[in-house]
């Protein structure tokens, strides 16, 4: 922490006003924990989900324990295809950077699993509800591991 300066002013009722400039920076080692196999899968160009070893329910984002019966789950690979529920053009960059605005963001139902993901769609076109999309892995070092992939529009809405 660091004091960057002070300010003085007079309040609306004549009371004195004094302000401190303060600077703080935090650094973390953020454990991705039970999602670690998903992040490692990204390095191999695959999206992964979990499936309950008891009732067979599938989960994305992956859950370690099945919500239905509390049984431990196993990992499996997803086909990487999905369908757009809704999409928007976003006019500010994401917090970790790595994407220049404007960019297209969509809520995508993923094939082969119950659940979906909100993620980036490649290109300038905002896809319609029902459009088919396929994951693409992007070359180079992403600003955040989750930005190592995005979705490409494969087909028009039916």
């Amino acid at each position, binding site marked *: 922490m660091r004091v960057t300066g002070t300010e003085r002013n007079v309040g609306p009722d004549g009371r004195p006003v004094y302000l401190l400039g*303060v600077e703080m920076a935090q650094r973390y080692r953020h454990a991705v924990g039970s*999602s670690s196999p998903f992040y490692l899968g990204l390095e191999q160009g695959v999206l992964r989900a979990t499936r309950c070893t008891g009732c067979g329910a599938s989960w994305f984002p992956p859950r370690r324990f099945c919500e239905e019966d509390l049984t431990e789950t196993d990992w499996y690979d997803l086909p990487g295809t999905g369908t757009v*529920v809704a*999409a*928007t053009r*976003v006019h*500010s960059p*994401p917090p*970790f950077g790595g994407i220049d605005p404007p960019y297209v963001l969509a809520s995508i139902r993923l094939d082969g699993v119950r659940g979906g993901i*909100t993620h980036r769609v490649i290109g300038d076109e905002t896809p319609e509800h029902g459009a088919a999309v396929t994951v693409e892995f992007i070359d180079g070092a992403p600003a955040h591991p989750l930005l190592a992939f995005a979705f490409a529009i494969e087909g028009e809405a039916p």
Partner: protein
Amino acid sequence: MTTSAESGALVAGVGMTPFVGFRDDASVRDMVAEAARAALLDAGLSSPSPVDMGVAAYESDHFNRQLSLGQVLSDTVGLTGKPVMRVEGGGATGALAIRTALTAIRSGEARSVLVFGGETNGRSVDRTTAIEILALSADFEWETPVFGTFAAPYALMITEHMRRYGTTAEQFAEIAVKNRRMALDNPLAHRGMSITVEDVRSSAPLSDPYRLFDASLLSDGAAAVLLATGDWVEQHSPTFTERPPVAILGSGSATDRPRLSDRSEEMFPHFAAKRKAAARAYREAGIDNPPDQIDLAEVYDSFSGAELQAYEDLGLCPVGHGGLAAADGRFDQGGQVVVNPSGGLMGRGSAVGATGIAQAVEVVSQIRDEVGGPRQVPGARIGMTDTHAGVGSLSVVNVFGRVG
């Protein structure tokens, strides 16, 4: 007088600070002290000592720069020695604190509870820092890396609402116009404005279809309410019988999947938790026809379209009719249900921990017929507050009404 067992809890006092862009003369504890003192004086108390316990409402340690703030605020408002608990529920924090106080009174744990909330969401941090902190409200592992502002998930929801029901950007822009106009009559409002639908549609794009004027404000502010049993009020609050008595008639809360894309496709453009919270609160309050029985509603207009969606999910209009309702004036001053006479988050502003409490202050003041001027809803007897966290991950609905 209605007993507290029948009514839940009586509202003995209310108070709030102005909501502003930046209070350079006050820290969060100063603002909470102002609001809490106002609520205690409103109840006719000359000291905080008769109050049994405190509930502190604030969302963000990052914005307030103080851990263990619950105890600091409790000390600041004069409740040292009494129990206090800090309540957090994202955008629903203030309303959840009121609901928590209600449960304490219903259970017999306390006969009087002072609820106080505040936040410095305004310009004590620069824009970049504010965006970085607020981005932590999204799922840090799955969402924050891909979108930094809540305009994006709200935009996804309303885009699907538009496709499914024919809702238009001009319809929700009407809400942005209405709430800013209502705020012009509220002296405590952050920023009332006289703007047009064209002004909304030509403001800076945030996340299509949302533009700058579709979004709400980030404010500095605090608010407080004092809840109590009938016995306690008779013993300690000389002002209670001097004006229309107000009680909490019902309260409901529910949760939904925090991540928008985890939700069912059927419910994608809707706030499922809001429906459940409202159903519970209405059942307790004996409300079976909300638009006919509710006189005013303070609704969570974090984005203009979110208010439109809330009309439907709160049962104020049929599902799919929110767009029509936004444009036909039925929720404007003089309409069937006056929605956001305070100006809402767009006009009065939003200081997260205080927001749901400030809504209650407005509703109680309206039912007491104390607001006056063009903002007063004539003959208001029943009013409700609606807030949610994230894009509806947690919802709280509180219903207030005149009890005599």
